[in-house]
C-alpha cells in the first residue's frame, strides 16, 4: 500500500436543515475530517441526478445528499 486512501467527498446540503446542522456542528466545535466540501442548495429537491454524476465524473469518491 502506498498512501492511505483519503476520499474526496462532496455534500449537497439543504439550506434549511442539513446546511444549518453543519453550521451547528461548527458552533459546537465538533471535529470531523477535512476531506468534505459542502455545497449549499435551497432544497435537496433542487439536486438533479446529473449533479451527482458530474461530481463523480470530476473525481469525487463519494457524494452525500443531506436534506
Amino acid at each position: 500500500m502506498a498512501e492511505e486512501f483519503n476520499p474526496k467527498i462532496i455534500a449537497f446540503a439543504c439550506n434549511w436543515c442539513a446546511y444549518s446542522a453543519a453550521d451547528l456542528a461548527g458552533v459546537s466545535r465538533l471535529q470531523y475530517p477535512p476531506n468534505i466540501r459542502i455545497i449549499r442548495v435551497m432544497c435537496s429537491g433542487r439536486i438533479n441526478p446529473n449533479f451527482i454524476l458530474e461530481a463523480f465524473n470530476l473525481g469525487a469518491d463519494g457524494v452525500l445528499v443531506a436534506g
Partner: protein
Amino acid sequence: MSEVQNIAGEQGNFEIKVLQHPRYVDMDKCIACGLCAEKCPKKVINEFDAGLAKRKSIYVKYEQAVPLKYAIDENCIYFKKGKCKACEKFCPSGAINFEDQPKELTINAGAVLIAPGCAVYDPGLYDTYGYKKSPDIVTSLEFERILAATGPFGGHLVRPSDHKEPEKIAWIQCVGSRDMHPGSQPYCSGVCCTYAIKEAIIAKEHQKGKLDTAIFYIDIRTHGKDFERYYNRAQEAGVRFLKSKISSILPSDTGNLRIGYTDKAGMRVEEEFDMVVLSVGFAVSHKALDLAQKLGVEMDQYQHALTSSFNPVRTTKPGIFVCGTFESPKDIPQSVIESSASAAEIEGLLAESRGSMTRTKETPEELDVKGDPPRIGVFVCNCGTNIGGFLDVPDVVEYAKTLPSVVFAEDNLFSCSQDTQEKITQVIKEQNLNRVVVAACTPRTHEPLFQETVLNAGINKYLFEMANIRNQCSWVHSSERGAATEKAKDLVRMAVAKVSLLQPLSDPEIEMNQSALVIGGGLAGITTANNLAQQGYVTHLIEKSDVLGGQALNLYETWQGEDVQKKLAALIKGAESDKNINILTNTQIKEVSGFVGNFQTTVETAGKEQVIEHGVAIIATGAQEFKPDQYLYGEDPRVLTGLELDRKFIDDNLSLNEIHTAVFIQCVGSRIKERPYCSKVCCTHSVKNALKLKELKPAMDVFIIYRDMRTYGLREDLYREARAKGIAFIHYDFDKELAVSKNQNDINVKCTSYVLQREVEIRPDLLVLATPIVPPQENPVASLFKVPVNEDGFFVEAHVKLQPIDFATKGVFVCGLAHSPKPVDEAIAQGLGAGLGQCYCFQNQSTVLQGLSEMHGGLPVSSHQFSGRPRHLRSKPGGLHRLWLMCSSLSHRCGRCFPL
C-alpha cells in the same frame, strides 16, 4: 434585561417607562465567539440547567438565545473585588464595557401585550416528595436538562448522585397541581401528563429500551391534538401507567428510592426506583404578578389574568392583552395561538395607524454590470482568532489572488464590523469590482448583511457569494491547520467560480389582493371575519348552510357560564352589519386556483357561480358531534347526546325537572380503535351539564361514568364543584364491558367500578352519551386548497407547536374545529389568530420577492414548467418571475420548480 417601571395613559396612547439593566457587553460589537466565557475565572450555578451545572459570570443563557450576545452578571469578580477584567483582555472585538449604566426608556404605544409566563411549583414545600433529600429526586424541568444534548451530562442519561445509568425511573404526576395543600394549586396544569409521557419515551430511547418507566397518575390527560395517540404509543412501548397517588418516596438501603403506593387491588405496595421525576405544575410568578399590578389588570382567584371565553386574550383593562400561561395553564400550541390572537386584536385596534411609523429605505442606484467581464473582490475574515487562529488566512488571501477574475483580495479582522463594511464599499468603488466573495462565517446569518454592503456600493446583491470557512472549516478542523487551510482555499475557489457565473437579478414587486376568504361561518370563522374587517380588510365569509353560527348554535353555556346563544348572536350581528364583510350563505366552493396574494375561488350560491378574488384563505369548516349507534341511542328518547341535552337547556325544556336519575357516559365512540383520539371538550361539557341538572333539581342523582376525567386547566374547578355537590363519578374498568340494556321500561347501565372492583348497575331516566367531535367524511376543501388532513380527518397545520394556525401552503390558514376538537375560548383564540395571517402576508399593498439567485445558481431557467396563474405583475411579467412566484409562494423557496 429590561423591566416595566410603570405605565400611564389609556388604550390608544400608553406611556410605558422601562428600566434596562446594564449588560456590560456592547451588543453591536459582541460576535458571540465565547472566548470571554472561556477565560472568565468566575463559576456560578447555571440556572438554565436547573442548577445541575455551572456557567461563567459572563454568559449567554443558552445556545439558541436571541440575541446571541453575552452579558455579565452580578457575580463578576471585577464588580466584587475591583479587579480581573479577563473578559475585556481577551475579547477580540472590544465589546466589554464595564462602564455600562442602567437606562430608563420611555415607550409610547397604542396597546400593550403581556406574556410574562409563570413559575413552576417548588416540590420542596411538601415533604412527601422528598425533593432535595436525594439528588436522584428531580423535577421534570431538571430531567429535561438531563436529557438535553446541551445539558449538564451532555445528553447522557445518568442519575445525579452517582452518574449511574438508571434502570428504573418513576414519574409522579400532579405535583403541586390538583392539590388543595397550601402552596399547591387546585387547578390542573394541563401539560404535565403529556410531557411526562414524552420524557418517559425519550428516556427509553436514550437507554435503548433497557429502562423501566412508570408513571403514577390520577387521570391521564392527553387531551391535546394527537396526544392520545402519543399516550397509546407510550403504552405500546412499555411505559407503565399506575393509577395511584403515592404516599411516600424514601431512600432505601441500596441507594435507590422506595415509593409507597396503593395498587389497583387496593393493596399497599412498595417499589424501588433508581430515579424519581416529579411532574411539577405551573405556579404563580411573582414577577408576573408584580407586572400585572403595575398595569392594573384584574386577576382571577389563582392570580391569572382574568379573561372570558369570548374575549380570551383581553384583560380587564382596555388596550392591554395577554397570552400564554399567565392567562391560564396551557401548552405550547395554545400559547402560540394566543400570541397570534392578541396580535390580531391589536392589529384591529390600531388599524388606523398601521404603517404610520414605517420608513422607506433608500438604496443607491444599481450599476449595470451585465455583460462586463467579472471583476471579483475576495475578503477573507479572521473573525478575531476564530478563523485566523486555526488556518492560515494570509495564505488563503494569496491563493485567492491567483484565481481567475479575482482582481482584489485581502484579509479583515472582522468582516462584519461597521468599519470593515465601509471599507469593502470603498474597495468595490476603487477597484471597480462587480462581484464580491466574503470568506467568513455562515451565509445563514451573515449573507443579508454583506448583500447590503455590496448594495450600498451599487452592486446587485445577487452578485455576492459567501465561503463558509468558519462554521464549516476552522471550527471543525481546529487541530489540522494545514488541511483546514487547503479546505478554505477550495471553498474560496468554489465561491469565486460560482460568483463569476452569477447574473444580476431584480426583486420583483407584485401586487397583493388584500381581501380574504373565510370558509365556514361557525364561531371561529365569524371571529376571523370580524377581526379582519376590523383591520380594514374586505372579507368574504362563506357558509354551506343557510345560517351562520355552526356548532355554537347547539351550545348552551361555556364552562365559565357565559350564555353562548347571546354572545353568538352579537357576533353574527356584528358580522352582518360590517360593510367589510360579504356574507354568502348556502354557498359551496367549486374550484380554487392561484396562490398567496392572488387566489381565485369559484363559489356556487344556489346554483349560481361567481369567482372571488382574494389574497388569503382561512379554512374554518368545522366538525360535528358524532351520533352513536349503541347504548339505545335512537331507540329510546331518554338517551341523548351531549348537544341534545344542551338543546333542552336552551329551550328551557321543563321535562328535565321530572328526572330522578341522570347518567353520563364519557368517551362513547372515542379513544377507541376506530377513533383513537380524545375530543377534549366532552369531560368538561358533561360536568357542566351535570351541574346544571343538579341546579335545576338538587335532589336528582347524577352519575358520570368515565375513563379519565379530563377537566384540564382551570376547568378542574368544575370537577371539584361537581364532586362537592354530590355528583358521583364512576371510573369504570375499560377492560370490562359497559352495557346498556332495556329491562321492561327501565334503562339499565352496567359497568365495573375500578375503585370498588365490582359491578355497578344504575337505572337512569336520562342517559347522556358524550360522543366525540368528528370531521366531515368528505372534505372537498382540503383537496381544492391542496392542504393535508390527518388520519382522523382534521386539517394538519404547518407545525404542531410553532405554526398551529398556518398551513405549509402560504396564505392558507386553519382555525376552529376543522383543526381539532376544542372548546369555545380556544376556537375564538384560533379564529383571531387566523386574522393575523392576513396582515402577516400583506403588511403592504405589494410584496418584494427575494432570493432568486440562491435558487437558480446562475443557471438559465425557463418558464415552461410553471403551473400557477400569476397576475398583477408590476415589473417584468416574464417567465423568470412567474416561475419564481410559484416557488416562493407555494414551496418556500425550495428551488424545486427550476428545471434544468
